[in-house]
């Protein structure tokens, strides 16, 4: 009897929580297919009488959203290349090769996780203005080629679990270190590399501060910046804004459902083994 009562409350709370999580989304979707007078009508309308799908195509005529998609995709692609090349080789060296300064470098890299990124924001901005990189994609791409402390940590944790017998056998067969990395370690580390790629995708897609500081030219805008400029110039066109917001989110939802499993495992690894 008691068990049944507590089960009822568990379901009640789960459903309530789900409603709270989904309601804002539902409101966003509902508003994205309404007309402007419908949104402002009183008494309020819960659902549109005639779904306005053209709000979505209007987003593309008001602002070059297609270009923003392309810009964001270009940034994602380059960051993925940078993240792959740098973090794998760094983590390989930190776990499979012995050399002086190895532990110090790893400790320093972990230490940077504690430094708020905002502290180095202005100096980085000045660095790029000296190098002539303002208003280009370079400041948003180049740093990914120098390793990322969180990804290095994830990979190091994983690489450490791979037995050294593999390396030794390969060395006896005459394989070079880069070959061991590419042909032995990387194939075994596929799941954790997938995690890294999904995180890179999300981070670049979500980044607001970086593009805000470095990109002025409308032609270079990312989706997040595009949405921001829409918000400042069409601040009461909520039907358009909500359609644009949905357009920004859609690819993320797709990526999330494709990579859900590796994604969750990546999130938890940082917290639990840390």
């Amino acid at each position, binding site marked *: 009897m008691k068990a049944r009562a507590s089960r009822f409350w568990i379901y009640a709370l789960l459903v309530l929580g789900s409603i709270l999580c989904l309601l804002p989304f539902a409101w966003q979707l509902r508003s994205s297919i309404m007309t402007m007078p419908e949104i402002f009508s009183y008494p309020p309308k819960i659902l549109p009488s005639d779904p306005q799908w053209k709000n979505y195509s209007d987003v593309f005529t008001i602002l070059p959203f297609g270009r923003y998609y392309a810009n964001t995709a270009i940034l994602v692609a380059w960051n993925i290349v940078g993240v792959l090349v740098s973090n794998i080789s760094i983590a390989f060296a930190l776990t499979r090769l012995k050399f002086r300064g190895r532990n110090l470098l790893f400790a320093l890299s972990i230490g940077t996780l504690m430094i708020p990124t*905002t502290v180095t924001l202005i100096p980085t901005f000045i660095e790029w203005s000296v190098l002539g990189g303002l208003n280009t994609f370079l400041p948003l791409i180049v740093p990914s080629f120098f390793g990322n402390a969180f990804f290095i940590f994830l990979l190091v944790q994983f690489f450490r679990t791979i037995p050294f017998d593999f390396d030794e056998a390969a060395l006896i067969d005459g394989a070079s270190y880069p070959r061991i990395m590419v042909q032995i370690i990387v194939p075994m580390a596929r799941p954790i590399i997938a995690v890294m790629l999904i995180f890179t995708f999300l981070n670049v897609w979500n980044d607001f501060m970086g593009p805000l500081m470095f990109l002025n030219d409308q032609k270079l805008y990312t989706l*997040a910046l595009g949405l921001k400029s829409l918000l400042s110039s069409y601040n009461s066109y909520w039907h358009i804004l909500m359609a644009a917001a949905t357009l920004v989110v859609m690819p993320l939802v797709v990526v999330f459902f494709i990579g859900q499993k590796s994604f969750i495992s990546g999130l938890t690894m940082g917290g639990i083994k840390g």
Partner: protein
Amino acid sequence: MRIRKETLWGWILVSPLALGLTIWVAFPLGVALSMSLFKWNMISAPTFIGLQNYAFMFAGDHLFWQSLSVTLVYTLTSVPLQMLVAFSAALLLNAKAKGQGVFRTIFYLPALIPTMVSTALWLFLYNPQYGLFNLILDKLGLPTSMWIRDSGTVIPSLIIMSLWSIGNVVVIFLAGLQGIPKELEEACVIDGGNWWHRMRAVILPQMSPIVFYNLVMGIIGGLQTFTQPYIMTNGGPSNSSLTLMLHLYKQAFQFSKMGYANALAVVLLILTMAASLLVFRSAKSWVYYEGDRK
């Protein structure tokens, strides 16, 4: 000969990290520290003014004190609340029930939304005239609120909004709960322990390292809050949501006071380190690690 080859490859492969730490961390930190002693508008040459930026910050800039108090109030209320709500949600999602896979996905979804998008969405939800929240309150016959348009309710509104997107924290807690050895809980039940005993004796101690991790990350994030107030209120009304980070941003990119903005960045760094240190120091008394003596 083989050892030398290993060292050589080690250095080659790790060189991006060594370079990166220099170019993107050490050098900018050095620049931030030294530039905080200069007056510079990015056009004319910087002039050395010693500690004057700091003197002005502490004695002359009332907006610094305002932003400091906004940031501290926001962080000190939102982070504990986030921990509490996320932990409860994780307990709920860990309970035996059908369809947990679906519930877990739903609870996580809001965290997937880019900050810029969730900020735009909540700006709409909080709209006093036709936003969702006031419509609901109105329907229920409750008094409506000005939400982010009132200096008294803007910070609570931002806190409520932050609770919506704590899916990451929930997932980390949930994984921790699933990692608790079943024997421990069973032993507690056999000894006649009820729900509360299980919580006190098993779940909370086992979860404490994870609470610790989430707490540190939450504080570091909270102290840097920027996008939400920047987009929603630009720090208003009457600076009641001006966070330290927003103040810094305005000084640097609206007023071109680069030296002063860097002094603010240095203070933000010290504040973050002090807060982390405080949590780290307290950790000895409440974080339980396997293998430690109790």
